[in-house]
């Protein structure tokens, strides 16, 4: 029996390590790549596992800290600060829009059964289309109303695309909350809106934080929508990352990796900041109290 359970433990640890390697390897590769000089990016016939001449040039380049390109002739800008700011504005605005509409819709559905039994599924169905399938019609529509390559255009599309997530996540939080919370506030003299903002919403703030982060990450990491709906005025960071290539160097792996790492930071920092709510928020709906 003793030997048997040791074997089992060994098998379990091995599985954890293998799966861990599988998932962490791309991150490892991206981190090391971001510190490699151009000569080590993709040398023919060699694999470089660790930067031999570590450099911060890739970071300096994407953050616009070097004025002139020291490595090769560059036709387009490699400075990613503008796209990063665009990404914040686009993802943040889209998230706020989705939250405002989604939270209210979720409360209506959870508490007043607004729209009948099927409405939540009809909303969910919005997510069944792959973005690629609707992106061309969206492009045409936005062009018609002069919202192509504008933040309003991105906000509307991001808001609409992530609306379903907000509704579904928040609906379960509202359903978990005893309806008496809102009713108690109403009996005490609040209006329906007052009860919602003063009593109901503060009680689901953990879920709200988790939902906001989740939606922000979705919008932040979007590539396809921004690729099609923006050109230069509102280019977002992922689209910009893809454009980091040149005739001389081909794919600019170093700056791409550096920018990729920078783009991981905001969701990671936000996640840590609201961690207290996050664990509760994400497990909230899963536990029957």
């Amino acid at each position, binding site marked *: 029996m003793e030997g048997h359970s040791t074997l089992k433990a060994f098998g379990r640890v091995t599985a954890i390590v293998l799966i861990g390697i599988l998932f962490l390897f791309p991150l490892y590769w991206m981190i090391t790549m971001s510190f490699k000089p151009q000569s080590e990016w993709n040398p023919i016939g060699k694999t470089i596992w660790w930067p031999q001449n570590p450099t911060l040039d890739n970071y300096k380049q994407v953050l616009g800290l070097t004025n002139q390109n020291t490595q090769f002739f560059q036709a387009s800008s490699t400075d990613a600060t503008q796209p990063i700011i665009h990404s914040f504005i686009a993802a943040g605005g889209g998230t706020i829009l989705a939250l405002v509409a989604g939270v209210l819709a979720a409360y209506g559905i959870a508490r007043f059964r607004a729209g009948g039994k099927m409405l939540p599924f009809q909303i969910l169905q919005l997510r069944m289309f792959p973005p690629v399938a609707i992106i061309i019609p969206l492009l045409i529509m936005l062009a018609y109303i002069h919202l192509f390559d504008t933040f309003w255009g991105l906000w509307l599309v991001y808001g609409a695309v992530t609306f379903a997530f907000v509704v579904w996540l928040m609906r379960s939080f509202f359903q978990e909350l*005893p309806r*008496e*919370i809102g*009713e*108690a*506030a*109403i*009996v*005490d*003299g*609040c*209006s329906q809106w*007052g009860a919602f903002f*003063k*009593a109901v919403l*503060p*009680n689901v*703030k953990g879920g709200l934080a988790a939902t906001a982060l989740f939606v922000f990450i979705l919008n932040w990491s979007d590539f396809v929508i921004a690729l099609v709906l923006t050109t230069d005025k509102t280019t977002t960071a992922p689209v910009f990352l893809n454009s980091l290539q040149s005739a001389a160097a081909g794919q600019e792996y170093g700056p791409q990796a550096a920018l990729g790492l920078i783009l991981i930071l905001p969701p990671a920092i936000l996640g840590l900041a609201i961690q207290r709510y996050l664990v509760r928020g994400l497990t909230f709906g899963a536990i029957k109290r």
Partner: protein
Amino acid sequence: MASIRLDQLTKDFGGLLAVDHVDVEIEDGTFLALLGPSGCGKTTTMNMIAGLETPTSGEIYFGDRPMSRVPPGKRSVGFVFQNYAIFTHMTVAQNLSFGLRVRKPRPSKTEIDSEVKRVAEVVGLGSMLQRKASRLSVNDMQKVALGRSMIVKPSIFLLDEPFSNLDAAFRAYMRAELKHIQHEIGQTMVYVTHDQVEAMGMADQIAVMNLGELQQFAPPLEIYNRPSNKFVAGFVGSTRINFLPAEKVAVPAPKGTDGGSVTLAIRPEYIGLVDPGSAEATITAKVDLVEPLGATDVIHLSWNRYDIRAIGRPGARPRIGDNIGLVFPFRHLLFFDDQTHEAVNGPYQA
């Protein structure tokens, strides 16, 4: 303070008649209990009184004023919910003052503070005003709920099974406290419960409901001694009342509708216990089980396939398997029509 009148009050949830033409009228200062099994419509009735549900038809009057178009916050009611419904993101003090803070015009801060202190003393939360409500024990949460509804000085207090989640000792304590408060300030209270002991012990008037219909509306002792139908007789009483077919028992019984059969009912504590062969005995039954409760014993007996419960004294406890004679005093017998289940004029005398 206000009297309450429910006039043909009805709530229809899309084909489900939750409350069916209920008429109840209580005077100012009355403690009314809405008693019934779960799903009987008592909470829906309560929600309509509070304004959380709109009646499908019928009307609610506070005094002479029809209320169904008055929003909940303007009805001057205090509501205590079964699951407390306290705001866990606030402190105890913030919870207590909530009703005052959302009021327009908003009272001054010193006014609010002194009210919070006063109410906290009444419900026994004086020492924990600054504590987060989410950190309270269940018992203290219910005190917060009670205090929060008291602070607005409502003219009517509505309590929806407020103590059913509390442990037995604290429940008894709170029951006594509530009765005390009610007695002291003469507050009109409506108390929803499925626990007939609570209703009997606290209420001035009891409205027994079942399946949305009002079964009987009367003071506790009348409900207990003169139940209007078989449901009320069976639902009220901590040891269940005994039902037996009247024709099998040698007692003079009235006739039912169209001369039909009737059921005889007798409360366990009215059954006299005598020796099996005694001439007084109405029937002789066999002892199945004895439940000692301390002050009394509940004796389970069987007679002709019928279960009978009687109350005995611990000093004269029969043994299982013994035969004993049961005396059914004529004046305590109740009779119910087997077709309508309504009470048939029996010989009951108080």
